[in-house]
């Protein structure tokens, strides 16, 4: 693992490099002004960083990319829906929504952790299916229970038929309240200072957490479950805690995300959030088993530059606006696919390197056959 050559570095940074190239080609073609681009990217850092940071802890615990971060997103949405119905507005509304979301996220994270403990070795596909499964439960709650069981008063939120939540819930009363709490404008670039402070605090928490006993245990579990178990670490509990933390942070992150957007798409806001956050993290040079705070920010900048620039560039090149849209979706998926493939091949390579002669023979045999 330790003998890093130039080739290893190239491989490690191949995805960010590719994105730098895509952005450099597309940005001039798109014809967007640098000022606009910088403004957009700063906004998007504020909007997404918290969500993406929530992915770091499960990676530390060796549970791979947490596709079930959508669970937290759903909890955050439920918090916001309730708070809007109670007519609690502004920053207090956000704080209350976070407080409401935390118990829900904790429960969902607990469920998720327990299920993932039963599916060791295939955490990612399982967490991916969990997100679909819980989406069903979410729809059950939001579409049928809100109204008759969970009281919802306002007709702007409730569907006219008397139960269920409308397709979009307006968050006008807290739209960008956090972003504009401490207004700052540098050369035409609006900087959401308060949001950045919150994100910075989470970064500090993550750095501190790594040094705690629990954080150390988590890293040990991520390295090798059996060894950690022998060392007296409660592996199952540690993994569950990592899922709970990730889900809770994702819930808070979703609230920050939605306050910037200004409305909730009740049935679709959360569904893609996991995919895009994971893609952004991977673009920043993270892998399935290794991710840092630096990856998060580099990832947001590169991924979102591509996201803004690609449709415009696509329209200019092909004359069809849809091409660029499809292109960026394709790139998002392709990035995740490539990252997963690299992770699995590296895992195999390391295994065979460390393995016995038998394993080496098998590799050779496979290569020949």
């Amino acid at each position: 693992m330790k003998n890093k050559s130039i080739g290893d570095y190239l491989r490690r940074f191949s995805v960010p490099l590719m994105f730098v190239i895509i952005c450099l080609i597309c940005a001039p073609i798109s014809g967007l002004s640098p000022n606009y681009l910088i403004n957009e990217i700063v906004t998007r850092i504020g909007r997404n960083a918290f969500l993406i940071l929530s992915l770091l802890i499960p990676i530390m615990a060796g549970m791979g990319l947490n596709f079930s971060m959508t669970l937290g997103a759903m909890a955050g949405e439920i918090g916001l829906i309730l708070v809007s119905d109670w007519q609690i507005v502004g920053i207090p509304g956000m704080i209350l929504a976070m407080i409401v979301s935390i118990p829900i996220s904790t429960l969902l994270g607990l469920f998720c952790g327990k299920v993932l403990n039963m599916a060791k070795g295939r955490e990612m596909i399982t967490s991916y299916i969990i997100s679909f499964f819980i989406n069903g439960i979410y729809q059950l709650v939001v579409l049928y229970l809100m109204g008759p069981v969970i009281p919802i008063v306002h007709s702007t939120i409730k569907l006219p038929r008397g139960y269920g939540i409308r397709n979009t819930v307006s968050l006008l009363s807290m739209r960008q309240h956090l972003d504009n709490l401490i207004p700052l404008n540098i050369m035409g670039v609006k900087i959401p200072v308060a949001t950045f402070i919150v994100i910075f605090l989470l970064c500090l928490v993550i750095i501190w957490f790594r040094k705690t006993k629990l954080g150390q245990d988590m890293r040990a579990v991520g390295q090798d479950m059996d060894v950690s178990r022998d060392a007296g670490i409660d592996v199952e509990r540690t993994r569950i805690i990592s899922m709970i933390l990730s889900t809770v942070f994702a819930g808070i992150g979703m609230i920050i995300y939605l306050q910037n957007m200004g409305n909730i798409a009740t049935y679709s806001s959360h569904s893609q959030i996991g995919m895009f956050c994971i893609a952004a993290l991977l673009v920043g040079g993270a892998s399935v088993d290794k991710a840092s705070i630096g990856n998060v920010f580099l990832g947001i900048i590169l991924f979102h530059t591509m996201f803004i620039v690609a449709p415009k560039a696509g329209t200019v090149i092909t004359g069809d606006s849809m091409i660029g849209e499809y292109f960026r979706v394709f790139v998002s998926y392709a990035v995740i696919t490539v990252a997963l493939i690299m992770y699995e091949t590296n895992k195999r390579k390391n295994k065979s390197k460390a393995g016995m002669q038998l394993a080496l023979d098998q590799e050779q045999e496979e290569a020949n056959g």
Partner: protein
Amino acid sequence: MDKSKKRRLIYRIAAFVVILLIAAAMFIIGRGHTVYFDNKMPENVGTEVSVPYKIEVIVADKTVAKLKSGERGMADTMGQNFKMQLLVTKEKGGDAARLQVGLKLPYNMDGIIINLPALLAGLDENAYLSEFVYVPSAEEMKEEEVVTDDTDGQMNFEG
């Protein structure tokens, strides 16, 4: 060992209580209201009051409404202590009188109508303050199709 467990329990309970207190505080300070200002003759009051030619309503250093006689304006506010400045012009071309008004809003009302002439005349609360009941338009009450399609969100991600 037992002692540290006990201490941990105490910490947890304390944290829980603190969070509950924060939540309660948020409920109180974060309650949003929409305040509507009417510059017209109050109904069902009995006494006649004079309706000024024009009233400017200033909330938090921002002019939210300039109301000629018979008009209505609105402002969103947070919490129950509502402060506003009124610039009252009695007659056309006359001088504007500035006055500071502080009101206590009832917690359970989303929308509140304040009849400014009645307020200025110094009538009691149920004369100038009434609830605004939101009546959704026919457009809003039209049944909407709920879209829960899995593939729907693929393309319109705002990032």
